[in-house]
């Protein structure tokens, strides 16, 4: 009886000691903000699952599937990712409503990869005022790299301006006497490219660029613009357009029997929706640049990174269309976040999350081209800034030359 009592007391003491010890250790190491705990990290996201940009919704679905895979493997540092994603219909007021819901009702740690320049502009001020990370936004505008004014916002993909600078650098080196004509869409997307090209050419911009022609996205056809550009007789044509107009441009120049050197924006490099409709024979020799691997390109068939991607898609997104570049994009972005969360360790505060996101060193997700690496620092919030030039040959793109960096100074 007495023995039993002593035993029980001893057990109690041991148990108390153990609890005190572990909780003491926890207090010393583990730090959490709203949205993180010993078992879970809550990440919010908004995507246009409906509305005019709903084709991009697949990015959100890929990310959801990616975090499901991470959780099946035991999570990150033992914590499961709870990925909450809402539809904003590509409408800024709806984006504000959904992001406020994520922050104030779901209480997420961070908002990750929200898509679209207008939606991100609408939520940027709110998130920065509340000091909540707006991490790896899914837009190519340059303004996301502004750590001084918006220390809680960070981009992910190469900005349109840095891509345009790469084309400018290439031109200066390979064709310094070129007479350049630029066809661009009259909105923030086209104007970012225009600015990047001019900045890249620097002092030579005035003499090299002989024509700038813009079109409205509402125009049914841009044939008239091409005829006008041809009349000025440039030998290089920069095509800063969305996919439909890119196909029209390539086709029309061939119809006019005009063969300038054509450089195409990364936005419109899809083989299926641009090069094929334009006609493969018309598209031979067109140049562009890329930072991610093309899932349909056979040269990556034995690439270990892309093999992992194929396994992921087969297992977690069965039946999905593998030629959709959004799935490569979502995989890359989600793995970057996973990397940053891993680096955070047990200090899952919002401040540390931003700190770790701003100290990525040579991180290479499975889906990026060999040599393209993600680097950030406290004054550089532009994770991917490298691209490689490529040339269209036969029925696919062939990469050539070195990886070029288009780093531009933050604003």
């Amino acid at each position: 009886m007495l023995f039993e009592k002593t035993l029980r007391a001893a057990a109690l003491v041991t148990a108390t000691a153990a609890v005190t010890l572990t909780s003491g250790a926890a207090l010393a190491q583990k730090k959490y903000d709203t949205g993180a705990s010993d078992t879970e990290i809550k990440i919010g996201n908004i995507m246009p699952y409906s509305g005019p940009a709903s084709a991009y919704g697949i990015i959100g679905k890929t990310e959801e599937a990616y975090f499901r895979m991470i959780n099946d493997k035991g999570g990150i540092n033992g914590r499961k990712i709870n990925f909450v994603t809402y539809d904003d219909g590509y409408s800024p007021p709806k984006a504000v409503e959904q992001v406020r819901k994520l922050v104030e009702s779901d209480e997420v740690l961070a908002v990750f990869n929200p898509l679209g320049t207008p939606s991100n502009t609408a939520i940027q001020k709110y998130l920065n005022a509340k000091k909540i990370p707006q991490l790896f936004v899914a837009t190519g505008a340059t303004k996301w790299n502004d750590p001084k004014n918006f220390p809680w916002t960070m981009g992910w993909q190469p900005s349109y301006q840095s891509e345009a600078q790469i084309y400018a650098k290439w031109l200066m080196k390979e064709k310094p006497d070129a007479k350049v004509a630029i066809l661009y869409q009259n909105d923030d997307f086209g104007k970012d490219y225009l600015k990047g090209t001019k900045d890249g050419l620097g002092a030579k911009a005035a003499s090299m660029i002989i024509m700038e022609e813009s079109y409205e996205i509402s125009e049914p056809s841009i044939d008239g613009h091409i005829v006008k550009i041809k009349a000025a007789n440039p030998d290089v044509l920069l095509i800063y357009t969305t996919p439909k107009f890119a196909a029209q441009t390539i086709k029309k120049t061939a119809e006019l029997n005009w063969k300038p050197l054509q450089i195409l924006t990364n936005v419109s490099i899809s083989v299926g929706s641009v090069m094929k409709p334009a006609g493969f024979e018309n598209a031979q020799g067109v140049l562009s640049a890329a930072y991610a691997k093309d899932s349909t390109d056979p040269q990556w068939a034995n690439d270990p990174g892309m093999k992992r991607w194929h396994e992921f898609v087969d297992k977690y997104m069965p039946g999905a269309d593998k030629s959709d570049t959004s799935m490569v994009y979502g995989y890359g972005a989600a793995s970057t976040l996973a990397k940053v969360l891993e680096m955070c360790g047990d200090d899952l505060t919002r401040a540390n999350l931003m700190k770790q996101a701003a100290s990525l060193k040579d991180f290479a997700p499975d889906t990026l081209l060999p040599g393209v690496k993600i680097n950030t620092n406290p004054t550089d919030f532009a994770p991917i800034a490298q691209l490689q030039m490529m040339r269209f040959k036969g029925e696919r793109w062939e990469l050539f030359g070195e990886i070029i960096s288009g780093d531009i100074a933050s604003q």
Partner: protein
Amino acid sequence: MSAAEEAIAEGHEAVEAVPKRAMTLGTGTSLVVLAALLVVPMFVKNFIIFQMTMLLIYGLAVLALNILTGGSGQFSLGQSAFYAVGAYTSAVLMEHANINYALTIPVSAVICFGFGYLFGKPALRLSGIYLALATFALATAMPQLLKLNFLEHWTGGVQGLVVTKPDAPFGLPMSQDMWLYYFTLAVTVAIYIFSVNLLRSRSGRAFMAIRDNEIAASSMGVNVALYKTLAFGVSAGITGVAGSLGAIAVQFVAPDSYTITLAISLFLGMVVGGVGWLPGSFVGAAFIIFVPNMAESISKGLSGAVFGVLLFLVIYLVPHGARQVAIFGQQLVGKLRKN
């Protein structure tokens, strides 16, 4: 059977006659609703307050459409254009001219009234679906007009304008959200009372006479052209105020915010709330704000389809919207009292 019930029993036209008595809630009910609107924000999260603010704002916009369609019998799918003009007026005045947010609202009202009145002039020649088409054109054109190059200096082009949210004045101890909610509530109540009185006045009777029979109205001495354009003006003015408040609450204006989808949502809100029943506007606004979220929580991939099914159910079960439910409730209460 009251006249409204008769209208429901036999009414199959899109816009059936609504007697003015049936256009509002009773005084007692109104006061209860107002008290609830005043008290609830003190006990809920800021996010809910923000949603309630948006509810009032969309409610105002639906109310404006209700005056136009339920009152004067004219269709409009172009309310998003007036909403956009109101929103941009406030945003531009606040950000470029540093004018106080409260002062930008009457300016929006006046500008939108003028815009609506002028648009009402050519619209006089059109009726029914033709008018709906003309206003539809206005709604599709508006986002592109806002992107025009020579306006870009003011409107910010596709990038839009970020608007600063006002703090509570006089050092009142409340959050920005709560202050904006009460501010919006005050504006809403004022406009609601104005609208009720307008529809009960001589002008309101003229609107309804035109709605019911244009020829009869003109033979009785109603200036049809004047009152039709006036209805457009008033409706646009109120929508403009809603747009201004919306811009301040969301803190951002961009052309993509004011597409035809918004106009259709407002139209939907009016039908769900009950055409011609002013309090229904706010029920309709609740429908267009909350039901898409509900649909999304049921199925992400099929949210549009789920929303469609829910909408179909509403239209099929209660074709006269919230008004029908309200009348049913009233009858029920009446019966219970008798027993």
